[in-house]
C-alpha cells in the first residue's frame, strides 16, 4: 500500500520534527537559528499539503491547524513555527478564494464600518472541492520558501542606507541577520562595531570574530559596560527573536538594558528582523510563557544551596524602538499592526 506508506512516512517526519523542537529551543538543539526553523516548518507543511488526505480546503486547514498546535506546544518559545503555520493557513484561504473567483481584496478590508453594518458574519466553510487547489497551494508555499531564502539578503541590501562612514555601531550578542547587515555595509564603508558579549552564553564573542574576519574594526565589551559606552555610539543595531504584535520585542536578555541606555542617550535603536519573526502574540507581564528559562549550568557550576535563574529573553517595549528593518523595507513600530494584518488572517491568530 503506497498510500499507507506515505502516511506513516509523513507522521514519522512530523514526530521527528516535534522531537527536535522539544530538545532544542533557542538555537541549542539540532535546529539552529530561526531562519532555518522557519524553512524546516514550511517544508514540513508543504509535505503535509502534498501527502495528507484531504478533499477540501477546510480539511487541509484543519489538519495544518492541528499539527501547528502540536508544534507550537512542543516549543512555545519558538514563535517562528507558529508564524509559518499562520502564513500557510493564509495562503490556503487566498488560494481557495481565488479558485472560487472572489477577490481576496474585499475579504481582507475589515473596516469598523463594515463590522458594524454586517449582521451575521457569513461563515466561510471552505467545503467546495477544486481540482487545482493542491497544486496552487503548493505553488504558493514554494513562493513563500523563496521569500524566506532571500530575507537575509534583502535586509542586508539596505545596510548602506543606514550605516555611514566612521560611525560607531553597537550590537548585542549574535544575530545572523545583523552580521550579514554589517558585513554588507563593510564592503563600501568603514565603521566601528562594539559588541556586548551577552553573558552567560557569550554569543557576542562569536559575532565579534565573525565581524573582525571581514575587516571590521570590532570591540567586545562586557554587558555591564553597555551604558558607559553608549555615549560614544551613533546607532544601535540589533536582531531579535520575535517581533510582537504591539511592536515590542522578545530578544536575547540584555537587550532591554541596551534599549534603555540608547533611549537615555537618544541613540537610534534599529532592529533587523525578517518578516517571519512577526508574531501575533502580545506580551503579558505576569507570565514567563514568553520566556524560555534555560538550564543554569552556564551560569554556575558548583552550587547546592543557591537558587539560580537563567532567563533567556527580554521584553523590549515598542516605545524604545526607532525603526524596524525587514525584508520588505523599514517600518516604525507603530506600523507593525498593519503588517500583521497583511501577513496573517485574523481568524488564525489563535491556532
Amino acid at each position: 500500500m503506497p498510500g499507507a506508506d506515505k502516511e506513516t512516512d509523513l507522521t514519522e517526519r512530523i514526530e521527528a520534527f516535534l522531537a527536535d523542537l522539544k530538545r532544542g529551543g533557542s538555537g541549542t538543539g539540532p535546529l539552529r537559528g530561526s531562519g532555518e526553523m522557519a524553512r524546516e516548518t514550511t517544508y514540513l507543511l508543504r509535505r503535509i499539503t502534498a501527502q495528507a488526505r484531504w478533499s477540501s480546503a477546510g480539511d487541509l486547514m484543519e489538519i495544518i491547524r492541528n499539527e501547528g498546535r502540536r508544534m507550537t506546544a512542543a516549543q512555545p518559545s519558538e514563535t517562528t513555527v507558529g508564524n509559518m503555520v499562520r502564513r500557510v493557513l493564509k495562503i490556503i484561504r487566498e488560494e481557495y478564494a481565488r479558485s472560487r473567483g472572489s477577490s481576496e481584496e474585499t475579504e481582507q478590508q475589515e473596516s469598523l464600518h463594515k463590522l458594524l453594518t454586517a449582521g451575521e458574519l457569513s461563515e466561510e466553510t471552505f467545503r467546495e472541492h477544486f481540482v487545482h487547489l493542491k497544486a496552487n497551494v503548493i505553488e504558493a508555499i514554494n513562493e513563500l520558501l523563496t521569500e524566506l531564502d532571500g530575507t537575509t539578503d534583502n535586509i542586508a541590501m539596505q545596510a548602506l542606507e543606514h550605516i555611514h562612514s566612521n560611525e560607531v555601531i553597537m550590537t548585542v550578542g549574535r544575530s545572523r541577520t545583523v552580521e550579514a547587515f554589517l558585513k554588507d555595509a563593510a564592503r563600501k564603508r568603514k565603521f566601528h562595531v562594539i559588541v556586548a558579549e551577552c553573558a552567560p552564553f557569550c554569543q557576542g564573542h562569536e559575532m565579534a570574530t565573525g565581524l573582525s574576519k571581514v575587516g571590521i574594526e570590532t570591540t567586545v565589551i562586557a554587558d555591564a559596560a553597555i551604558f558607559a559606552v553608549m555615549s560614544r555610539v551613533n546607532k544601535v543595531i540589533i536582531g531579535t527573536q520575535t517581533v510582537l504584535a504591539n511592536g515590542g520585542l522578545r530578544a536575547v536578555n540584555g537587550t532591554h538594558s541596551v534599549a534603555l541606555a540608547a533611549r537615555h542617550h537618544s541613540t537610534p535603536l534599529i532592529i533587523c528582523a525578517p518578516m517571519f519573526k512577526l508574531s501575533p502574540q502580545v506580551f503579558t507581564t505576569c507570565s514567563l510563557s514568553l520566556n524560555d528559562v534555560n538550564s543554569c549550568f552556564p551560569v554556575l557550576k558548583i552550587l547546592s544551596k543557591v537558587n539560580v535563574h537563567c532567563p533567556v529573553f527580554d521584553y523590549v517595549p515598542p516605545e524604545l524602538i526607532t525603526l524596524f528593518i525587514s525584508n520588505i523595507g523599514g517600518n516604525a513600530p507603530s506600523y507593525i499592526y498593519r503588517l500583521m494584518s497583511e501577513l496573517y488572517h485574523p481568524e488564525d491568530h489563535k491556532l
Partner: protein
Amino acid sequence: MGLVASRGGKQKKGNVTSEQEEEEQPLQAVLVADSFNRRFFPISKDQPRALLPLGNVAMIDYTLEFLTSTGVQETFVFCCWMSNKIKDHLLKSKWCRPTSPNVVHIITSDLYRSLGDVLRDVDAKNLVRNDFILVYGDVVSNIDVSQALQEHRHRRKVDKNISVMTMVFKESSPGHKSRCEEDDVIVAMDSKSKRVLHYQKTQGLKKLQFPMNIFQHGSDEFEIRHDLLDCHISICSPQVAELFTDNFDYQTRNDFVRGILVNEEILGNQIHLYVTQDGYGARVSNLQMYDSVSSDMVRRWVYPLTPEANFTDQQGQGCTHSRHNVYRGAEVSLGHGSQMEENVLIGRDTSIGANCHISNSVIGNNCTIGDNVVLDRAHMWNNVHISSNVEIHQSVVCDGAVVKEAVRLNKQCVLAYNVVIGPNLSLPEGTVVSMHHPEEEEEDDDDEFLSDDQEVGHSKDKTRQKAFNPAEVGPEGKGYIWKASMNDTEDEELAQCLWGLVLNPDPESDSESEASEESQDRSRSVSPEIDDVNAFQLEVLGTLQRGLEENIVCDNLVLEINSLKYAYNITLKEVMQILTRVVLEYPFQQQGTQLTTLQYTGSLLPLLKTWSPVFKNYIKRAQDHLDCLSAVEELFLEQDTHQTAMVKVLMKMYQLEILEEEAILKWFSTGATNDKSRQLRKNQGLQKFIQWLKEAEDESSEEGE
C-alpha cells in the same frame, strides 16, 4: 538530514534506509529497569523503582528520553521485579508508538538477580552487535554523550578492541547535593589517554591505597580525582557482555571495573573515562537522591527535560511555568490566600485549600489539599488527600495516601501506598509507614510450621499484632510502621538506607587495602576492651594462686589459662605479658607492697621455678622472648625501687631456660626506646649480667667449634 534531500528520493526510500543501516549500524542501548536491591522498600513493594514518579513523570521515561535524544535507535529494556507493570507502562507510552525513533524491546525474566545476569543474557541472546550504552532505569540526565561515543569509537578503531568501556562522569565538587555518598569514587587516570588506572569507592574509607604499579607504566601524567560524579552511564563494547559471561561472579558494574583493572595485564582490556563539565546526570539510588534530583529538575537543571516540556507526550500532562519556578497543570485550583512560594510543581486536577503555604514541593495529579497546610520539600504523588492544618517537611507521600487533620510529618518520613495517618499526630523524624506489615514475610514462613492445636492461639496473637496501632498511625490511621527494630539487622540497614543515611559505615566490607586492615588489627591489639584484659589478669592470678594452694600440675594450669584466653578473646602476646606481670607481682599481691628487694626475690625465685613449665609453654618463638622481656622491663620500670631484683629474675629465668641468651642480648641492645629504659640498662648488675652472658656465649661458641 534535510527534508528536501530525502524528498527527492522518496520513491526508493526503502532501499535507501536499508543501505544506510548497513553502513552505519543503529546505536543500541541496554536499559536495566531494576535496581536489584531493596533500597526503596516498602515503596517498591507496590511499584517498581523505575516507575516511581519524579516530577510527575515515571523515572524510566527520563532515561528513555535521554537515550533517544542521544540518538539511540534501539533500546532493550530488561525488567525483573514487577515486570508486568513496567511493560504496561512502556506499551502505553510514546516509546512504543510506531513512529518512535527509538525502538524499545522489553525483555522480562524473573531470573535476573543482578546486572551481571542481565548482561550475560544479552550475550546469550546475542542482542548487541555494536557499541551500546548501558544505563539503569532510574538515571536522569541531559548529558550529550555523542562526544564520549565518538572518543570511544576512535579508541576502539586505533587500538583494536582494547578499550571495553567508557564511563561517563560529571565534574562536581565533593559536597554537591546531587552527589550520592554511596557512589563517591576516587579515580586515578592517565590524563592523556583518559584511561582508568585505579577505581575505588570511597564510602566509609579513611585511608586510600593506590598500587604503585599504576604509576610506573603508561604516560607521565596522572590525575587522581575525587571531584567526579558517577552518572551511571557507560558506553560498552559488545565484549562487555562476553566478559560478564566469562566471569560468572561479576554481579555489578563495580565488580566488572575492578576485575578489568586487576586483570588488565592478563586480558589486555582497558577502561576509559569521559568527564563532562556541563549537563546533568544522576542516578536516583535512594530517597535522598530522589529529593535532590527532583528539586534539581524543578529548578530546571535538566533542561530541556523540564516539567512544562511534557516530553512524554501524554495528554493533559502539560503545565505552565511561571516566575520562581512555579508549574501548574491543567485545572489546578488554588484557595484564597494560598501561597506557592518557589519551586513548586502541581499536577492536573489538584485542588488546594485556603491559606496554604507551599514551597519546594512536587504535588501529583488529582490531589486534594485542605486549608492551612504547610508543605516544604514534600513529594506527593497522585490521588493524595491532605486534610486541613497539616504540616509536611521533606517527606514522600505515595499514591492514595490520606493524611488527616492536624498531622505533622517531620523530616524524612515516608507514607507508602494507601496509608492513612491521623488525625492529631506528629510522626517523628524518619518514620516509614506502609500497608505491608514488616513481619509479613517472616510470618508467612512461620505459618507452615505451626501445628494444628497451636494455631488458634497463635492466629489470635497475630491479629492483635496485625491491628493498626493507634499510637503509631493515629486513631483513624491505617498502616504499620516499617521499622528497623522489628526486623533483623539486615533490614535495619535498609530502612535507614531509604534516605541514604548509612549510620554504620562498615569499612571492612569494601576495603581491599591491606593497610586499613592491618591498622585495625593493631588498634584492636593495642586497646581492646579494657575490662576484658583486667578480668583476664584477675582470673590468671586466681588460677595461679589456686594452683599453688592445691598443688595443681602445670599442664592443667596451662589448659585453664588457654580456656580463659578464648573466653576473654585475648591474643597470645597479651597472655604472655599478663602472665609475666602476674607472676612478677605475685609476691606483692601476697605479702603487701612494702617488701624489701631481698624479700621479694626470695619469694619470687621459687615461684618462677614452680611455674617455669607454664612459661615454657607460652614462650617459644624469638618474638615471644622479646615480648616477655619487655613485660619484665615494663614492670620493673614501674617498681623502680626493686630494679636490682631484675637481674636476679632474668638470671633465674635464664637458668630455668625460660629465656634464651640471644633474646636477652637482643633485648638489651635494641629494646631501649625511651630515657627510662635506657636508664634501666645502665644498672650495674644488669651490665654485669649481660657481660657474663656475652662471655658465656663466646665460650659456648668456642666449645662448639
